[in-house]
Structures are given as structure tokens and as C-alpha cells.
């Protein structure tokens, strides 16, 4: 998604929570001008700020990072740890439905329990 999509999402979430630019800026610890820039798609938002925005707006962090064209550090670590296996697995699974992904997740959770 584009920067504008991220901006629109942030603006809509902020307004739904009844927060002014300034109030959100205070929670995220950036200037309110910066928040306006993010909402208007004028800046590339850092991972750190995206995470803070996700927390302040009660929005799924991974989803927000994805909309901002970013991936969380722990995911990057997992891929780097198994640089051949993980990408291959993801490519193989790319056409799975949401329900199938859930099934797969449950299987992995069970595997983890047995360890």
C-alpha cells in the first residue's frame, strides 16, 4: 500500500479515538507537524514511530507496519536466521487462504507445545 493509505488509516483511527493531532503527537513523542506529514503521506515513517502509533491507536502492530511497507525486527531476525528455509516456506504457502493459514498456525503451536 502507498504512503497515502497509511496516512488515511492513521487519520481515520485518530479521529475515531477523538484524538487531536497534538494529543496523538504527545503520546507518540513526535511533533504534531510530523503527525500531519504522516497523515498527508509526505514522509516515510520510521518503524519506531509506526510501532508507537500502533500502540497509541490500539491497532495491530504487524498490520500497521505492513501498510507502512515495513516488517517488525523479530520477523526480519527469523528470516535472517534461516535465510533459505523461511523464504521457501513463505513462497510455498503464499496462496493459502486465511483459514488454511490459521490451521497451519495451530499445527505449529501444537508442535511448540510438544517440545
Amino acid at each position: 500500500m502507498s504512503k497515502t493509505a497509511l496516512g488515511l488509516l492513521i487519520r481515520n483511527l485518530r479521529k475515531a479515538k477523538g484524538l487531536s493531532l497534538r494529543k496523538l503527537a504527545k503520546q507518540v513523542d513526535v511533533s504534531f507537524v510530523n503527525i500531519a506529514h504522516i497523515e498527508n503521506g509526505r514522509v516515510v515513517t520510521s518503524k519506531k514511530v509506526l510501532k508507537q502509533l500502533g500502540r497509541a491507536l490500539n491497532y495491530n502492530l504487524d498490520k500497521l507496519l505492513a501498510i507502512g511497507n515495513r516488517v517488525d525486527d523479530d520477523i526480519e531476525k527469523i528470516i535472517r536466521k534461516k535465510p533459505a528455509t523461511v523464504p521457501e516456506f513463505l513462497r510455498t504457502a503464499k496462496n493459502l487462504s486465511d483459514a488454511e493459514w490459521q490451521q497451519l498456525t495451530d499445527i505449529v503451536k501444537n508442535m511448540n507445545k510438544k517440545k
Partner: protein
Amino acid sequence: MNDPSHIPNKTIEQEAVQLVQAFEKESGTRIKPPIPVFEMIEFLGYDLDFRSDGFYKDPNNLGGLHIDEKLVVINENLTEQEGRMHFTAAHEIGHIRLHVSLIMEQKAKENILCRKDEGFEGIKKDPREWQADTFAAYLLMPTDRVNDAFNKVSQHPITLKKKRFLNLFMKTRPARQRSLWIAENVINEGGFENVSKLAMANRLIGLGLVRGIGYQKLLGA
């Protein structure tokens, strides 16, 4: 307000007061200085943008009202001048309250772009720009709040007399400098953190609380 070339100051002040009252009702809190003008822009259903490209490359182009997009743009170069930035935001609110309905009635596809030389500081004195500046002054510095703060600084209006020949040999500050010093004190007493000393000095002059001196302009403007 059908004739935009003349809106009495009293009407402009009423518009500012009514906006504050509506905002107080919506937010459920009593508003006191610093008046939250950016929150008010959003309360009026407009979004905000800060730009330094195109028209806004020129620092003399202070802001704009994009009516179709319901967007207020502030020149990003102003963000380091707290007073001027807030005055510009309040000025754009002035356009929203005083001029947008008329523009909509005329079905004009018009954006209002605001240049420094058309308002209080300018020589062109476009009536709309002048009215928006007047509105901004009333909104950011409500009469009763300014009076209250001024009373803490002085019990009586202060007359700043021009330097007489004899004073040339004494260490007295020029009237302009003294008016700014009074303004600073009123700002501090009243919590007008988002108002410049110059804007407050002019408000005090307008209210007759500081006398013997005309409206002041930004030096070098």
C-alpha cells in the same frame, strides 16, 4: 455578512466568541489561552497540512484554505515561529467562519491563498485578508482574557509618549520596545503562549490599553 467588503469588527468578534463557545460545548471543557486553534480547525471539519513546496516555497505565503478538499495548509517555514504559525491557523479559521459560506453560495471553485502583504502587515489590505486577521486576533486574544491579564500588569491604560527632545538624553526605551515589553508581560500573565509579542502589542493598542502609539508592524516586513 452578505457584503464581504465590509463586516463590522463587532460581528467578527461575535463569530470568534461563538466558535469558542461551540468548541467548549463539544469538548466539554472551558477554553482558556493558549486557544487551541489547530484543534478548532479539525472541529470545523477541516484537515491540516504543512507544506514548503510550490506556492509555499515563498515564506511570505503563509497559508491557504482549500475549500473543496476541506483542507487548511500552513507554510511549514512558520513552524519555528510559534506565534506566527498559530496566528496563520487562526486566520484560516477566520476565512472558514467569515467567507466560505459566501464562496459556496456563489458556487465559486476558489481556494483562498494567504500572503503576508495582504493582511495587517501588508500594504495591499485585501478586505478578506484583513477581516481574517481581525478574526485571528479576537480568537487568540479574547477581549475579556486580555483585559484580565492586563489588569495584573497595570491598573490603568498605559500611555507611551513619543520621545521628547529632553528624553533624548535619558535612557528611556522607544515606545515600540516598551509596547512589546508590556505585551510580553500580558502574555505571561494570561498564558497566551501561542501569541507573538507583536500581535499582543497590537491587540492592546486596539483595546486602548496601550495608548500614544499606532499599530506596529514586523520590522523588515
